């Protein structure tokens, strides 16, 4: 029986010629990562271990991004714990204020992950790096601690779902709409424990940023990982960002998939996930007036340069509606700087938006845009659970940066095509 891309990467990292869905394996890791929320817990767990050393100081990355610059004393203590740990173990990849970015935008940008890698991160959106043809998945702090010490993790080899993407997305349709459409189709547990393997000629019409966004939200369908084949665009991205050699794995022609779905990208419309689950999707134009109080453009899902560009394209020469707070958060220092150089930041500020230093901040209701009771936010983030961005009686509507920017101008959720010039 043939293997999927994911199964081949896992087999190679377990030193096996073949693996099957359901098999329990121990795999070598190319990167173990954590953030300022999950790492302190992992560091405490590591203190209980006999071996107190990290397996490879180049292959452990700690990225301060959730509550920093520190939002309160406890957050400051957590970052201090990480900072001291990184210094003690002489970690090569420790990113703090000034160098940090939102981890899942920063890790690929810094070239820390390449095709063929096996990566765990103590953050559920670690599945993002599948866009580069790597196996990467989210774990908890104890797995992170074990990974930091042993350089290994146990996995149940996942079964797979195949998504054949065809056609070219129309104007204002992006990776976010693709993944929201898929989650709407299969549900928030539609890919539970499974890999989501993307393929088809439509991939050529998706930018790397689109692919990162799609893989990022594999977890929102319950997936273990999302993964794209490595094409010229992915190869060029890795060449630009990383000095490391990469290895391309391709799914066997007779690889087994539990289901195959075909998605014609040309038929997709800008999509919105209504509260309180990412599967509650509706296409713009199919629902009545949804007024908003806030728009958030950023996060590990949509804080990359192409997201900033499309938001600026819409906000250029326009104003954020009175009564709406529009918060733009470039995901990394590089994205911020690039946006500054291209004049995008000026566009945001002139439109009446605010621009923040990189942080996960409002996405998980941390800070920098918390909602009061009864308030509604249109957001390019990844979750719209009860209380996710603040009060339990607030609401989050997940969209692309294009829809979020257009909605900030209109004061209600709209497709950019509905805005007057």
């Amino acid at each position, binding site marked *: 029986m043939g293997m999927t891309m994911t199964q081949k990467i896992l087999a190679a990292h377990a030193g096996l010629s073949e693996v099957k869905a359901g098999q329990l394996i121990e795999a070598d890791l190319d990167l173990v990562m954590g953030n300022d929320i999950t790492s302190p817990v992992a560091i405490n767990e590591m203190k209980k271990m006999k071996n107190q050393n990290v397996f490879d100081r180049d292959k452990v990355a700690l990225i301060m991004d959730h509550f920093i610059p520190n939002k309160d004393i406890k957050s400051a203590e957590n970052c201090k714990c990480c900072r001291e740990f990184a210094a003690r173990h002489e970690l090569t990849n420790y990113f703090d204020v000034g160098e940090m970015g939102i981890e899942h935008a920063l890790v690929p940008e810094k070239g820390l992950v390449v095709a063929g890698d096996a990566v765990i991160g*103590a953050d559920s959106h670690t599945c993002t790096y599948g866009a580069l043809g790597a196996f990467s998945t989210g774990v908890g702090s104890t797995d992170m601690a074990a990974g930091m010490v042993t350089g290994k993790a146990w996995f149940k080899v996942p079964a797979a779902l195949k998504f054949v993407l065809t056609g070219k997305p129309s104007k204002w349709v992006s990776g976010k709409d693709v993944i929201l459409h898929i989650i709407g189709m299969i549900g928030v547990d539609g890919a539970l424990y499974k890999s989501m393997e993307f393929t088809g000629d439509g991939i050529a019409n998706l930018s790397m940023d689109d692919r990162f966004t799609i893989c990022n939200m594999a977890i929102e369908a*319950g997936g273990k990982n999302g993964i794209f084949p490595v094409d010229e665009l992915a190869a060029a991205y890795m060449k630009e960002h990383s000095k490391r050699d990469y290895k391309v794995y391709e799914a066997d022609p007779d690889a087994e998939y539990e289901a195959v779905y075909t998605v014609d990208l040309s038929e997709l419309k800008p999509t919105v996930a209504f509260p309180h689950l990412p599967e509650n999707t509706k296409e713009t134009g199919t629902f009545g007036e949804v007024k908003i109080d806030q728009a958030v453009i950023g996060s590990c899902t949509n804080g990359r340069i192409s997201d900033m560009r499309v938001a600026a394209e819409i906000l250029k020469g326009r104003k954020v509606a009175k009564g709406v707070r529009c918060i733009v958060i470039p995901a990394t220092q590089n994205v911020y700087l690039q946006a500054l150089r291209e004049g995008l930041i000026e566009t945001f500020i002139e439109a009446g938006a605010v621009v923040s230093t990189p942080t996960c901040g409002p996405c998980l209701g941390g800070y920098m845009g918390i909602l009061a009771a009864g308030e509604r936010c249109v957001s390019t983030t990844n979750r719209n659970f009860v209380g996710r961005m603040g009060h339990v009686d607030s609401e989050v509507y997940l969209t692309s940066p294009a829809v979020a920017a257009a909605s900030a101008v209109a004061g209600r959720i709209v497709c950019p095509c509905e805005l007057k010039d």
Partner: protein
Amino acid sequence: MKANGSVFKYGDNVDTDVIIPARYLNATEGAELAKHCMEDIDKEFIKKVRPGDIIVAKKNFGCGSSREHAPLAIKCAGVSCVIAETFARIFYRNSINIGLPIIECREASERIENGDQVEIDFDSGVITNVTKGETYQGQAFPAFMQKIITAGGLVNYINEK
């Protein structure tokens, strides 16, 4: 190993944000996290829960974030076991790794109601609903995971290796 307690029943897709809201994630200690366990879905939970009590839910329990703070908050609130039709995969891993017993059982998830008195035998996977006089067969762990649980979590398992 056995568990025995009264049930707090919830529905599908109980996510990690309602199990422990991110506004409390600046804390790392289980006891502190437990004070806010289930707060955004059931404000009464933490007032009513007694040591040994059991959470029963439907599909995809623990979906969302990788925060280990979620199973930790549940464990430190005194809950002896979570039964669900299915669990989100990171929550499942985390529970095994920190030693919070969890069992997948569709029948139990469907039949057990809020307030029912339930007993669980972890060796056999048999769940007994004392209130209704019914038993359900839960799924036993694969041998590998059983080893981690028996060792008292992943850290001990690695230390013993």
